[in-house]
């Protein structure tokens, strides 16, 4: 059985990292957030253009995702910053929600403390005190039953569905056998894979949920008047040999292996405790998709990329794998594992799966991904339902 060395949080979750999160509640606090995070060791800034002038359902989604960032086990403490007073996405409610985990949480209101310079000073000082506490924590041995594995793929090509996604699926199955949970997302890129996913559902209710979730996403797309052909698969997918959305979907779904599908969960929603695959309602947009997965508490994400992709979530280490040797050579700065041996015949599929499995355990225990070392933080974006108000 697998285990890893992680940071045990007051709520019992186990982190792969020990970050201090500097969290912007609204676009207008972003600059202060960046300055504070630049000044503090171990601090990660989360900035975004949302938190105001949104419909109620979108404000709730923004609120839930910001709270989910703070609740993720990789985060040890949080400073939330706002510029004035936000309705339905205010810092007191965000701080209250995150503090239910028992983690230290502080708030700073730019207007209330007398402007940007005072706010930077106050937030930096509050963050420093939290970091002093976090620095006393040490890694402890934890079973992989405490692990939620994020699954995603992007810039897919022929090699994805034939090799790297298949190996990732076998790796996911192994984690699940040992008590972990995996999150499969990207609903519009599962159109055509319903039958296969439904055949793995644990109950007739989950079968219905799978069909309904994917159908609902397809209806949202069609309601815009868009005909998806030509944009899905993308032009580069088509050049690479993928002809239809169904073909892309079936190749993409391979990364969820063959384990039972336990439930369908909402965007950013935490999965249940039973080991298995949880299907999350997210778009195919990579940053929005992996942000939903991080908000659900996943500690590490494996991102399978055919063409090579620079995506990395700021608080969820993102291991990038490829089955395409050319892409690995071109994108070595951010792609961690070259699995092209599967198709060239020098690496067995099981061997590739074991390679990913071991890499995940090492990253859970502290090994840094290439993108973490390079401070690549390309993967935070909150999904939206409606228009701006």
């Amino acid at each position, binding site marked *: 059985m697998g285990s890893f060395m992680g940071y045990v949080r007051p709520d019992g979750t186990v982190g792969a990292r020990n970050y201090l999160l500097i969290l912007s509640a609204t676009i207008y606090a972003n600059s202060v957030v960046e300055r504070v995070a630049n000044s503090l060791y171990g601090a990660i800034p989360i900035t975004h253009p949302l938190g105001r002038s949104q419909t109620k359902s979108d404000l709730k989604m923004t609120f839930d995702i910001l709270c989910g960032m703070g609740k993720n086990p990789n985060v040890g403490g949080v400073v939330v910053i706002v510029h004035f007073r936000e309705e339905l996405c205010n810092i007191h409610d965000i701080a209250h929600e995150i503090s239910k985990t028992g983690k230290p949480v502080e708030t700073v209101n730019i207007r209330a403390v007398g402007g940007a310079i005072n706010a930077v000073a106050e937030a930096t000082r509050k963050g420093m005190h939290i970091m002093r506490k976090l620095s006393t924590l040490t890694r402890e041995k934890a079973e992989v039953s405490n692990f939620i594995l994020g699954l995603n793929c992007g810039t897919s090509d022929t*090699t994805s569905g034939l090799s790297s996604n298949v190996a990732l699926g076998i790796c996911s199955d192994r984690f699940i056998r040992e008590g972990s949970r995996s999150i499969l997302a990207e609903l519009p890129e599962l159109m*055509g894979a319903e039958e296969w996913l439904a055949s793995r559902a644990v109950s007739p209710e989950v079968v219905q949920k799978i069909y309904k979730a994917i159908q609902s996403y397809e209806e949202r797309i069609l309601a815009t*008047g868009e*005909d998806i*052909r030509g944009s899905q698969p993308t032009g580069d997918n088509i050049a690479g040999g993928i002809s*239809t959305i169904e073909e892309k979907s079936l190749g993409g779904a391979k990364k969820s292996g063959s384990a039972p599908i336990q439930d369908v969960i909402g965007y950013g929603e935490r999965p249940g405790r039973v080991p298995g695959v949880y299907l999350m309602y997210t778009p195919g947009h990579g940053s929005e998709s992996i942000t939903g997965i991080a908000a659900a508490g996943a500690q590490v994400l494996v991102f399978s990329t055919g063409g090579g992709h620079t995506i990395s979530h700021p608080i969820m280490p993102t291991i990038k794998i490829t089955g395409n040797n050319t892409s690995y050579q071109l994108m070595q700065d951010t792609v961690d594992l070259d699995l092209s041996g599967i*198709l060239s015949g020098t690496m067995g599929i099981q061997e590739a799966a074991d390679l990913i499995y071991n890499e995940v355990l090492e990253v859970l225990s502290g090994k840094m991904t290439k993108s973490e070392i390079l401070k690549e933080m390309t993967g935070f974006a909150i999904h939206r339902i409606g228009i701006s108000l």
Partner: protein
Amino acid sequence: MTKIAWVIDEEKDNVATILSHGVKKGAAIQVETYRKIKEITVQADIPYGHKIAIKPIRKGVKYGLSIGRATQDIEIGQHVHVHNIESMRGRGDFG
């Protein structure tokens, strides 16, 4: 050994994926299908990563499942791509 053509679900699939560069019209290639090796004469130049028909096709099958509908009859050895199969999903033209 480097594989030239790859079949996922050997029993059901009617396409194989070409995993070699320079597969040209008229070439004879070997495809491993269900319990046997099938020799196929390639009917068109097929780029790396694209699909070739290994059975006559009216409906495309890969991964043992449907990947779309053929818009014309496709014979063994022909290139299978956006010119002769189409998606049935996410389309604005179906009522």
